[in-house]
């Protein structure tokens, strides 16, 4: 029996691991589910609304920005949803929806699509949006005036309202006059402190980070070097390192924003340098500038150095060192002869 069928001819390899960009993005969203649930538990519909606004704004901005470039929306790769979700988790439950929309438009429209789209963007889109609304404060003020009276908020339980309306844990540690009055264990497990939604549980973030590590979407280098640098530096400066590790956007930034594939170094030593310097910048910002979105700014600053870090930390090709050694030995031998 002769087989007469024709088959497609393609280059090898003929099999693949099945890893895809959408799968990785879905994994990232799954990794953010625990902290999202904790935030929703405390802030109720306020959290749901904020997340919904960011996701919707991300999808619409992506569609519009890509339409301008003459391309189809990229929502199917799920990366805009990751940006939208991380951005929402950076904001406090009291954030106006127009500020969230503005940040998302900056993140997806400019930070991502305008810079070339997924793979080409130099800056982490979420950090870009979060920092953007601070840098562009005049625009936010203008928006606040325009939309005054259009704010949307939902009821929360009375003790959550109390703690949200007070100082956030970050303000407490980063202002000289205040001290942190929330136990570390509470910050680690579940605390409605009024900071970003993601600040409600460091443990939930760590769980998500562990999942990304397990799925090999991230490596330990960046989170460990950021958190390590912060711990060491704050200890040297006489602070309690746990105060810093468990407050503000540090945990979210270290695990989910600084580890962004596109905007972090591709070499392992480069990732360590990148992480350590982010940690240094975060501490400098917090200690000398007070409570700001230091993490977002630190990540953005280091994002700019990624090409340089990559170039300086590239490994040699297999056997390159030996080839160089052999060449040197030959040169010496020739000289001797």
């Amino acid at each position: 029996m002769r087989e007469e069928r024709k088959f497609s001819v393609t280059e090898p390899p003929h099999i693949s691991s099945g890893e895809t960009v959408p799968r990785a993005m879905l994994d990232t969203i799954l990794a953010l589910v625990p902290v999202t649930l904790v935030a929703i538990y405390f802030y109720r519909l306020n959290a749901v609304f904020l997340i919904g606004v960011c996701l919707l704004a991300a999808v619409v901005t992506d569609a519009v920005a890509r339409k301008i470039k003459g391309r189809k929306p990229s929502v199917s790769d799920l990366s805009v949803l990751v940006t939208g979700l991380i951005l929402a988790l950076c904001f406090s439950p009291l954030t106006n929806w127009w500020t969230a929309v503005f940040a998302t438009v900056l993140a997806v429209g400019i930070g991502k699509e305008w810079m070339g789209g997924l793979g080409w963007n130099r800056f982490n889109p979420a950090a870009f949006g979060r920092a953007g609304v601070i840098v562009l404060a005049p625009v936010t003020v203008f928006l606040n005036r325009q939309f005054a009276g259009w704010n949307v908020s939902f009821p929360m339980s009375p003790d959550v309202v109390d703690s949200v309306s007070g100082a956030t844990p970050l303000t407490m540690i980063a202002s000289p006059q205040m001290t942190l009055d929330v136990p570390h264990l509470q910050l680690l497990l579940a605390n409605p402190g009024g900071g970003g939604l993601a600040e409600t549980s460091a443990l939930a973030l760590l769980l998500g980070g562990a999942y990304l590590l397990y799925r090999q979407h991230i490596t330990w280098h960046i989170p460990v070097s950021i958190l390590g640098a912060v711990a060491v530096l704050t200890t040297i400066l006489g602070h309690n390192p746990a105060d810093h590790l468990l407050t503000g956007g540090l945990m979210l930034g270290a695990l989910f924003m600084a580890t962004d594939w596109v905007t972090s170094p591709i070499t392992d030593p480069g990732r360590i340098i990148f992480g350590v310097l982010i940690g240094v910048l975060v501490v400098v910002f917090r200690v000398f500038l007070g409570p700001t979105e230091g993490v977002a700014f630190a990540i953005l600053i280091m994002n700019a150095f990624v090409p340089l870090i990559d170039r300086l930390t590239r490994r040699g090709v297999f056997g390159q060192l030996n080839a160089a050694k052999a060449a040197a030995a030959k040169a010496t031998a020739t000289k001797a002869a």
Partner: protein
Amino acid sequence: MSNGTFTGGIHPPDYKEATSQLAIEDIALPDEIFIPLSQHIGAPCTACVEVGADVSKGQKIGDSESFVSAPVCSSVTGRVTAIEKRKHFTGQEVLGVAIKVGSQEDQAKTNYLKAIPAWEEADLDELRKLVREAGIVGLGGAAFPTSVKLSPPADAPIDTVIINGCECEPFLTCDHRLLLEKTEDVIVGSLIMKRVVGASRVIIGIEDNKPDAIAHMTKATASYPDVTVTALHTKYPQGAEKQLIKATIDREVPMRGLPMKVGALVHNVGTALALSEAVRLGKPLIERVITVSGPGVKRPCNLRVPLGTPLNHLIAHAGGLNAAAARIVLGGPMTGWAQADLSASVVKGTSGLLALDKALAATRDEYHDCVRCQRCVRACPMYLYPNFLATAAEHKQWSAADKDGALDCVECGACAFDCPANRPMVRFIRDAKAAVMARQRA
């Protein structure tokens, strides 16, 4: 000394269970065979028979004057019906000799070489000459003439012969079966290699997904003090020459250098068998063992096949293809050649014939820009940055691709296997290699 592994690599599912426990079968002779005159690295052969001539099994039918080349011999007794260009497994047309296979009785007529049973005392050049005349090339896939590898220059002494029993390509089990079934030949072949190059030891490296082969070979080599078996981690591409040397004796072959620079010589299990048969029996390289497998094959098997047998004949022996067959691959799924049909014939370097189904067969027509996930960087056994290299190649930035090590890439495909953006890394890098080499020649 041996760390059993190398840096980088990937862990694809090995899909070997379909054939790993199946003994090697002989296959009925086809009506006609076609033996390409170029099936190795080096100069192609010129036919030394004419159309209409009667040839017998083992008779040389093509040879070349070049040092880097290997003759081809008839795998059957029969009559030459044509010397013409036909489709090769690479998709190109190559010149070859078509032979109508004679009757079963005719096959008893052989034209083998003069064996050297006393190889332990024989003249080394005589042994090298025999290896050359027998047409032996590396049977792992690259098909580099073995006689050339057995003639190292005096300034590169070789102390270790490494027998490659890794078989790190998924699906393939032919080397596994040879280790179990042709144990003595493999050991003797490796000892002949050791003697010819003046090495002091033989190391047989086997991946630890073949515990039966490791146990069997360890026992079989117990009485040979110079031969040891090393279990290696199961990781692709463990069987790549430089990675295997690193894993077994922890030496790093210099960039763009040959293994002899670090005193090592690597040969495949099948090559050791061919060498043993040539030296002890005078039998030229006229057959080899091939794994026929994959979800598209009705009856997966390990076959001993005369060289030149049409692929269709192998598939027929394996019960035919089923409806699910979507991609035909000659060789392993990581580096093998996709076939448009089954018209090509088996050559010396053919280690497998696979029929993949739609679920397994990867297509990379649609792909995303690089997302810098680092997976290819972690996978690359040559310590390259496949991401930068492939992106440079994609945009035809040939100088950048050259700087990024286009010529150091071994095309193992580990980067493409694990790329979430589905980028056709090997295609990009091959383009870059061709362009860089063209520029160097210019």
